[in-house]
């Protein structure tokens, strides 16, 4: 009988015990803790301006981006370079994908260049699984369709840990287009593993089928949803979905699901406001909230680079100087 398990290949190539980072669904609590511990170590170096250990020196990370992305791509690029590694960025435009080469062929060609890790962004769920199975090197999922975006969830966890001092026991609300959000899925799995209580809120047209089976609270009404929450994550709304019968208009979406000061009146005074970016100001979040004192949106960006440093460091089997870990 064939193995039919929804999980990536295992490996003991590094101290994390996994070959690739394909999703937070496949991480356990201790692995998440290990990544976060390394991230906070790197953060100390970065914040203090001390030289960062060059654990990727002489190593090459290939960034294969089949879907437009500015911040995730530049975040991985900067993370690699801070650790002394080289990057090669391949995008759909200008690559052989434009000439009809398949993803698998592109990846095999890339492997022949002998990189040390591959970061993949792709519009189809499962694409990093295919590459993980055929390539003999770590694959980092930088977003696959609606499926997962694990480094985004890890940077969100890091940010929550930084500002709340803990994750366990916190009440976290994710607002918006949950159905088409890889950020939401990765955060749900990761937060639950760390002991947080997760709820989602959005128009019923934009919630995944059977989402309650993921063990999350489900709200359609935002003012009820925000009550007693420690963290509110709002997601970027894709305008093309609004035109596809999932919500009648931007205005109506904003009216019912936009995070504004008036909505936050029913929330805790110390609630943390997060957004994975890029922000549609005035649609899913009002400018006052996005720029307000409770917003940690820019901290998320900074932590993104640091978490990706930790992930690339760990997956490529990097060693830190003795006595630091």
């Amino acid at each position, binding site marked *: 009988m064939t193995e039919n398990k929804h*999980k990536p290949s295992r490996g003991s190539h590094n101290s994390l015990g996994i070959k690739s980072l394909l999703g937070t669904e496949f991480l356990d609590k201790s692995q998440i803790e290990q990544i976060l511990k390394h991230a906070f170590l790197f953060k100390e170096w970065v914040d203090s301006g001390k030289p960062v250990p060059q654990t990727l020196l002489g190593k090459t990370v290939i960034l294969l981006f089949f879907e437009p992305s500015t911040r995730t791509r530049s975040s991985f690029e900067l993370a690699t370079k801070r650790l002394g590694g080289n990057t090669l960025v391949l995008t759909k435009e200008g690559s052989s994908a434009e000439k009809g080469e398949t993803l698998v062929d592109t990846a095999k060609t890339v492997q022949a260049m002998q990189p040390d890790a591959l970061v993949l962004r792709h519009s189809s769920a499962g694409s990093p699984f295919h590459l993980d199975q055929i390539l003999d090197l770590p694959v980092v999922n930088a977003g696959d*369709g609606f499926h997962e975006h694990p480094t985004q969830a890890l940077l969100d966890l890091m940010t929550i840990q930084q500002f709340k001092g803990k994750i366990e026991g916190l009440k976290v609300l994710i607002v918006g287009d949950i159905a088409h959000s890889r950020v939401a899925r990765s955060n749900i799995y990761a937060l639950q593993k760390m002991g947080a209580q997760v709820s989602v809120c959005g128009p019923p047209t934009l919630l995944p089928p059977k989402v309650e089976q993921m063990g999350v609270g489900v709200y359609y009404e935002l003012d009820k949803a925000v009550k007693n929450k420690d963290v509110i994550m709002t997601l970027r709304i894709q305008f093309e979905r609004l035109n596809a019968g999932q919500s009648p208009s931007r205005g109506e979406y904003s009216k019912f699901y936009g995070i504004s000061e008036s909505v936050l009146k029913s929330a805790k005074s110390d609630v943390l406001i997060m957004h994975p970016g890029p922000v549609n100001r005035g649609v899913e979040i009002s400018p006052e909230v996005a720029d307000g004192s409770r917003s940690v949106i820019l901290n998320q960006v900074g932590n993104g680079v640091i978490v990706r440093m930790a992930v690339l460091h760990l997956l490529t089997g990097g060693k830190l100087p003795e006595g630091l870990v």
Partner: protein
Amino acid sequence: MSADLVIRRARIFDPSQNLDVVGDILIQNGKIQALGTQVVVPQGKSNPELDAKGWLVTPGWIDIHTHLREPGQTHKETIRTGTEAAAAGGFTSIACMANTKPVNDSSFITTYIQQKVATESSINVYPIGAITKGLEGQELAEIGSMWEAGIVAISDDGKTVMNSYLMRKALDYSKRFNLAVVCHAEDAHLKGRGVMNEGFNSARFGLRGIPKASEEIIVARDLLLTELTGARLHVAHVSTAGSVALIREAKRRGIQVTAEVTPHHLTLTDEVVGTYDTNTKVAPPLREPQDIEAVTEALADGTIDALASDHAPHSVEDKEVEYDHAEFGMVGLETAFPLYYRVALQKGVSLKRIISAMTHKPAEIIGIPKGTLKVGADADITIFDPEMKYRIDKNEFRSKSRNTPFDGWDVQGKVRYTIVAGKVVYSDAQKEAQGGLR
């Protein structure tokens, strides 16, 4: 006159005549001449004999849902390779769907297929004609002319005739020719760009879902239109408990409807999609455990009349791509029987029901004089070893394509001989070496 073949010491198992007896079968001039415990074999010349001790001998199996891809997509399958795969799978008769390139929507293409079959195939092949020209759902194909040329049913399989008015006209028109209208039930708008069953697993895997309602809406619509017109409907590849309930109720009300289920909808759930193996991508999609229970129960009680593989070959290039972009479909002719037999062994569906659903029931649906070992019938016979266990190996397939999710499965029940009109068209080589056919 000597015999074509004498089958000895067989357990003759023929649901069409409620027969389950150990005896002999005498074949002469391609027909069943005699069978049972009292068969008198012609004296004199030596008759070829086949010792079938320990094996089951049934009417030749019939698969009314296959895609042979010829004309037009011969890199996936040809009439030759597809029929060789069928023979290896124990099938003596198959019907082939109309979605070739060009589409089988005219007597010209029907005749082309038949001429190819005459030279390339050792088994019987019955073309199914399109309902609408080019499968475009806009206007009726020349159904009457195709019927004259020999089609046995009409279907836009792969697509649903979304225009209810046109579907009603197709059902009405089919009555003149007593052709079953085979419905592929998937509401195109509800399906959208979905690639797997909609449910908790599609949410987990981040793939676009296809709700069960997309099938059930069309099944319900076509049942109502069949009641309205008094035509004859056959529901292809039933995949949901809801469709089963609708068909069961329609039969109770006397609507002329038959239905089929595939090996994969009897054995796999949408959980397997989590590997992102594109060989699990099929239309309708793999569903949930409660649906498997419902279609199994429906097969057992006869609500689902027939078993059909929906053999849908696709090349590596069509499948070795992102899940979203892969073609729908899996090959089935060479893995169908052991999977059906598994349902008999593990789920308690009677062997009689399984064989019935592979022989006289499908023959009735497409109106061919097959599926029986009655004296005088064509000597189309399948012989299998009910005990033999083996592992499915896609590299052994005769089919040109390898797109199966069942590679490596351990199964039981092996085809030993496939016989068409008294001629052995497939034999299990290993057993033959041991002297099965003398």
